[in-house]
């Protein structure tokens, strides 16, 4: 049960008030007609689906009705940040990898990163079996 900080309401709210809406930052092609069937299919259906850091779109459905973005670890379920539409994340898999190189965070096997994560996160990144 997530406890989600709504960047518009400026407070943590219960998961029941929110709906997940899939991967964030999926831009609709500017000129759909210029897309090949493959490009259009990619836009419609193909998503990153990482085990690790993921940027997702959520809506504060029972609340301010605003869409916003969450950076979340899909194995530990830790929310690393939330940010408004139109903004870019300050934490990404890449930024964490850089920090890891500098010795600030741990990196789990398989190239997925997690910051401040619990054993649980690391365990499930390493060992969990679908």
């Amino acid at each position, binding site marked *: 049960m997530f406890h989600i900080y709504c960047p518009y309401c400026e407070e943590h709210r219960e998961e029941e008030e929110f709906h997940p809406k899939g991967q964030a930052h999926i831009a609709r092609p500017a000129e759909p007609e210029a897309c090949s069937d493959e490009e259009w299919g*990619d836009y419609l259906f193909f998503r990153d689906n990482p085990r690790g850091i993921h940027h997702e779109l959520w809506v504060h459905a029972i609340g301010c009705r605003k869409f916003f973005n969450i950076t979340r670890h899909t194995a530990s379920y830790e929310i690393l940040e939330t940010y408004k539409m139109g903004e870019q994340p300050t934490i990404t898999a890449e930024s964490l990898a850089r920090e890891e190189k500098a010795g600030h965070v741990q990196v789990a096997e398989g190239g997925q990163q997690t910051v401040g994560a619990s054993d649980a996160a690391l365990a499930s990144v390493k060992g969990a*079996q*679908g």
Partner: protein
Amino acid sequence: MQRYSGFGLVKHALSHHENWQRQWRNPTPRKEYDVIIIGGGGHGLATAYYLAKEHGITNVAVIEKGWLGGGNTARNTTIVRSNYLWDESAALYEHSMKLWEGLSQDLNYNVMFSQRGVLNLGHTLQDMRDIQRRVNANRLNGIDSEALDAQQVQEIVPILDCSKRARYPVMGASWQPRAGVARHDAVAWGFARGADARGVDILQQTEVTGFKILDGRVVGVHTNRGDIGAKTVGCVAAGNSGVLARMAGFRLPLESHPLQALVSEPLKPVLDTVVMSNHVHGYISQSDKGDLVIGAGIDGYLGYGQRGSYSTVEHTLQAIVEMFPIFSRVRMNRQWGGIVDTCPDACPILSATPVKGLFFNCGWGTGGFKATPGSGHVFAATLAKGQAHPLAAPFSIDRFHTGALVDEHGAAGVAH
């Protein structure tokens, strides 16, 4: 392979069970195999079994990063049915159903396939239209399927509340008598034992860390136990398919979501069939051990944590108590989650990929368990021939570019 029988059991009892053989070996990986299957769950083991049995290909490795049958095979609610709406999926699931019907004998391993029937309830006029449509399609596809009215439903499940009191009264149901449940772990173990006996190497605790790809063609895999070569690789890794596809350099139209389930404490027999409801949103059966096995909905976010949100469990139990008010005092023992790979059209992917020799069998969403033997059978043929089996052909990745989706959301609406 040591054959199992009632007589054998007596013999073993007399020798204090000291002579049972291993059900599968713990082999050391060879350098090269004809076929590598990534994923030692039910589907992967079934693929290996049928490769050996039907196609004589026994130089096969099943690579499993944990313990065999430890993924969704161990975490599902064991429902087996084939009453799907569209021709393509109905054919695939019915193929599977036919294999289920002789599976215990074929494997010499009792998978406890119990054909106790599955009811899909209808609570609205549109539910009933959808049921009629699916039942009619099933029958013309040669699948046993009936549309029942509320009274007929009540006769099959006397403890179901079919009264008008209900918020969404039961109006009727579709009924597949041949459908039922099976003992999930036994399916994986039975296929593992059968495959092992035919020479397949099951490599547990072996994790694929990358693919060896030469000129667009797969030639093997990297693992934590060294490199293993093979010109044909089949990925059957359920909740990890997306991660594997990334390793091979492409994306799949999949999202991995938590799917939760729960069981009650064991009870004396009280429910003799499987009851599912899309509208009220829950499904339930009683295991042979006596637990009520209950399915919860899918959680809407990506999740590899094998757990989901508590509110999903609450909604599911609300649905169960709405349908079965007598269960209000029954107690929930355990809940857990699996990871399901869902496709945009709620149908699987059985397909070649941009990498030659590399095939994927994934995206079964919430419906994978029931397909286990059929999926393995069809995928084995696909790997053996290097091209899609006719039943697999409609489920290629291409459909997401052409738009030829097989939209089964109606039939798969409640996660099961």
